[in-house]
């Protein structure tokens, strides 16, 4: 059983344990399994050792290094790290080292965390399996023939494999929650604006949000408390102070109203074991004193279609900056337009090009209103229906991902099949709401190469904007009720 971040920080702060020893245990785990899992694009072992020694020196001087003292953390490789390669798993950023740190990177560093490396992702966070990486796929630590989910698959796998105690990812349509579900860890998409996006390489700016991975709900709450809060460098960050999460974590769910979203749970695309896990979690919450019922939120079924117009439209605009002029790759051409187009064709992978094309088309003259405009109106309908649901319920429950982890290559031939992985997670991004995935049991899957393996299932807890305190209480109760949970 892995140490919790909260326990490590308490021990390091009290001088009972050295940050350096904690780090060496994790580096040993990386040496043992990273060649199989490929969670990282870069392991920053030397910098991490220097940082751990700094933490230990601070403790011996009598200073307090902070609430994440000596906790090893992995960062998705779309978070800018000053002077350290940040690739987004794309050839187009080849050799680029950011001239500044993302705000979240500063915050975890200042809280005493030890950064162990940059994790693999689907290129520019576009994908649901971490197979769309210029540097090769990441594999699921539970079964190496299967994907870890995506796009933050490297961060999820790093925590699941014990390479790091915590990790950060980004979630635009489920890219933290879905890999958390597939890798058996906790993953959180905070309320839009709760965490600064400054230094997160932009994909779809009205949907992107940075969130934590952890092995427990408590650790995820601790990490979110550290990274949340206003940042003048992100004009979309919420000005009011972020709510405390740990204080109320153990308050229980007595009297809380919990709605199981019918459209996302009773859907024919949902694997039976996954549906059963959501129902078992709801029953457990009822047994713990919550009032549970089913609730219909019909327009969530249109979330996927709206998302695959809105997100590519925003991406086509955001990724226009990769022009061969300011960073990374340049492929020479006859003139500047030719250089731009050759650089972009050569530097971007297949899925990124597909989404740029889709977004450019959806925004082009003659199609704008039918596609992008209509998707934005559907976004409004989804928000309105959620608002009605949250008049009757404090939180909602749904699957996180439709299935457990699938085999590598199983969904790469048909983009639409891959997109369907995000059907249950996308609505919260469109609404700007909070949501998180909590491990709840597993399903046996027979496997051609490795026989039967137990693959984790995640249950999703959804909450309205700024609903994190209640969402975490419910998630904690789900965690306690989970098979083998504590």
């Amino acid at each position, binding site marked *: 059983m892995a140490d919790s971040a909260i326990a490590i920080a308490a021990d390091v702060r009290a001088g009972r344990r050295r940050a350096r020893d904690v780090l060496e245990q994790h580096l040993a785990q990386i040496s043992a399994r990273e060649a199989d899992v490929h969670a990282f694009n870069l392991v920053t072992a030397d910098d991490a050792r220097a940082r751990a020694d700094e933490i230990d020196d601070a403790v011996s001087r009598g200073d307090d290094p902070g609430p994440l003292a000596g906790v090893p953390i992995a960062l998705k490789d779309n978070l800018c790290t000053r002077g350290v390669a940040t690739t987004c798993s794309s050839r187009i950023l080849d050799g680029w080292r950011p001239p500044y740190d993302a705000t979240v990177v500063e915050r975890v560093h200042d809280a005493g965390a030890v950064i162990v490396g940059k994790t693999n992702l689907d290129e520019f966070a576009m994908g649901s399996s971490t197979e769309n990486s210029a540097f090769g796929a990441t594999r699921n630590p539970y079964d190496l023939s299967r994907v870890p989910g995506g796009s933050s698959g490297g961060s999820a796998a790093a925590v699941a494999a014990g390479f790091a105690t915590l990790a950060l990812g980004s979630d635009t349509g489920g890219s933290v929650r879905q890999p958390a579900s597939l890798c058996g860890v906790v993953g959180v998409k905070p309320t839009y604006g709760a965490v600064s996006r400054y230094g997160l390489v932009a994909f779809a700016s009205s949907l992107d949000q940075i969130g934590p991975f952890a092995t427990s709900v408590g650790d995820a709450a601790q990490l979110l408390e550290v990274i949340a809060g206003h940042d003048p460098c992100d004009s979309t960050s919420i000005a009011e102070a972020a709510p405390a999460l740990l204080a109320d974590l153990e308050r229980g769910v007595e009297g809380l109203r919990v709605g199981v979203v019918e459209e996302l749970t009773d859907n024919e695309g949902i694997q039976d074991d996954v549906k059963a896990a959501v129902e078992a979690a709801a029953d457990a919450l009822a047994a713990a004193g919550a009032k549970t019922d089913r609730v219909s939120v019909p327009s969530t079924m249109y979330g996927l279609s709206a998302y695959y117009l809105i997100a590519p439209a925003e991406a086509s605009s955001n990724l226009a900056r990769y022009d061969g002029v*300011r960073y990374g790759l340049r492929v020479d051409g006859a003139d500047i337009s030719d250089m731009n187009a050759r650089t972009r064709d050569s530097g971007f992978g297949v899925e990124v090009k597909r989404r740029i094309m889709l977004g450019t088309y959806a925004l082009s003259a003659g199609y704008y209103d039918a596609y992008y405009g209509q998707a934005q109106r559907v976004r409004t*309908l989804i*928000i309105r229906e959620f608002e009605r649901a949250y008049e009757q319920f404090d939180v909602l429950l749904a699957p996180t991902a439709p299935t457990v982890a699938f085999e590598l290559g199983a969904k790469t031939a048909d*983009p639409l099949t891959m997109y369907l992985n995000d059907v249950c997670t996308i609505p919260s991004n469109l609404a700007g709401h909070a949501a998180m995935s909590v491990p709840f049991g597993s399903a046996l899957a027979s496997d051609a190469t490795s026989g039967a393996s137990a693959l984790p299932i995640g249950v999703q807890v959804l909450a309205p904007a700024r609903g994190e305190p209640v969402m975490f209480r419910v998630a904690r109760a789900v965690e306690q009720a989970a098979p083998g949970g504590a």
Partner: protein
Amino acid sequence: MSEGSLTRAEVEHVARLARLALTDDELDALTPELSKILEHAAQVSALDTEGVPPTAHPLPLVNVFRPDVARPGLARDEVLAEAPAAEDGRFRVPRILGEAP
């Protein structure tokens, strides 16, 4: 043209708009793929949105101001050091339009 169905010529046009020098193979693959994705995405038109305002952003933000106080920016030389080509403190780019270099 039916909604969601794209021709190869349209895909070439979009590639030009997106500044992507796609190869013939890429154009051949993308034409049916994009058509299929758009067909799915066009499901949004099944919903009645008469009188529903669009949502561009989840937060009700209008203008976000900060005090007009100078702050240090990024160091020019550090930024230029990461560019593919720089000269005299500026990004260096290939010829634009037809003028002499």
